[in-house]
């Protein structure tokens, strides 16, 4: 009888342990999936910004700039935007990279506004800015979701154990562009 009880107890423990492990791995997979989605969206946004930077460079090359300084700062802003966007997707996923991408988007947006004002390119600029805003909104939504989930048990434990950098998005992360990052280097 004792052996039978021990066997039942051991089997139940094994099932519970397996269930708990599966549950935690499930949560890990959930977090990985969400992080992959964020990374993928960031990569797509980075790619969109690169394409737009190339487009803006071509447009900027055909401008008749009133001042050489304006031309230089326009191209410097694009170079800096590309650098920020590249760094944002090259480094491990964390808040600073999201801010870097947001700063890059801010720089590209300022260039679009310049182009739209001087060359009658309002429609193209408007479409690009709208699409950028949509992409930023999507990333922001995913990051908020991640932030909410990662604060709760058991995702908090899983994130901490798997060494994921915590993403604490807050509201409208992508709207809070650090002004210093907007200055071309």
């Amino acid at each position: 009888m004792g052996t039978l009880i021990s066997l039942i107890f051991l089997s139940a423990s094994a099932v519970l342990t397996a269930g708990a492990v599966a549950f935690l791995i499930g949560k890990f997979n959930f977090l990985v999936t969400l992080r992959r989605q964020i990374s993928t969206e960031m990569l797509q946004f980075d790619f969109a910004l690169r394409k737009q930077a190339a487009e803006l460079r071509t447009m900027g090359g055909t401008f008749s700039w009133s001042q050489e300084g304006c031309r230089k700062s326009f191209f410097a802003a694009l170079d800096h935007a590309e650098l920020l966007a590249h760094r944002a997707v090259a480094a491990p996923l964390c808040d600073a990279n999201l801010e870097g991408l947001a700063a890059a988007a801010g720089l590209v947006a300022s260039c679009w506004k310049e182009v739209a004002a001087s060359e009658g390119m309002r429609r193209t600029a408007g479409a690009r800015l709208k699409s950028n805003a949509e992409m930023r909104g999507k990333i922001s939504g995913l990051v908020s979701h991640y932030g909410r989930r990662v604060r709760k048990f058991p995702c908090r434990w899983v994130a901490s154990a798997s060494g994921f950098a915590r993403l604490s998005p807050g509201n409208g992360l992508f709207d809070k562009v650090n002004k210093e990052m907007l200055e071309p280097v």
Partner: protein
Amino acid sequence: MRKQGITFQWIDPCPNERLSQAQARLRDSVVSLGLEPELVPAGPGLIKFADVLRFARTRGSGSSFVWCNSDVTLTADPFALDDGRTVRGFHRREVPSGESCGGVDMYLIPNAVWDDVLSKDLPDLWCGATHIDWWLTRAAVLAGCYTSHFGFIDHVTHQESPASKARANSYYRHNIREYNKWARRNGSGLFEQRIRLPIVGESLSPLSDLFRSLKTWGH
């Protein structure tokens, strides 16, 4: 004076007619731009990306060298952008759709950047499988010397190869592992992967699935 060279794998025997025609088109496009095709001899099996780049470095005659995938067509001379300091990644344009591809299929690498930075820590990646552009782009970005370009290469759209996307493919898995090792060493972003469980597979949360199923039965 020796012409500038474009390095790419010359696959012989070719596993399919598409690739055979594509690499011949690439060779012709390189010659038509007044450049020299530098052919890396390869068979149907994949070879290591580091070996291809080393080959390109030793064959280079100027201050930079260029590598590209074997199934693109050159439409402009990448050496026109050479400044001896910046690694330049080239996104291909898909034919016939005209769309730009997110992946990078050609790089112009200054010898100085190769010698001082890139060659110091080369991940063991298979050329033709996934993530080689993740490594090269990120390594150059982390070194602060990378820009991307559009409009230099065309690529006829085809079905993706298993080594570039299929998770079950051993080349794919190898490259992801090696890329992640390199990324850990260098503080770059990892390619995060989910854990596969026996029987359960990749369920996001097996217990949640069970509860959901029970709920469904309840209704």
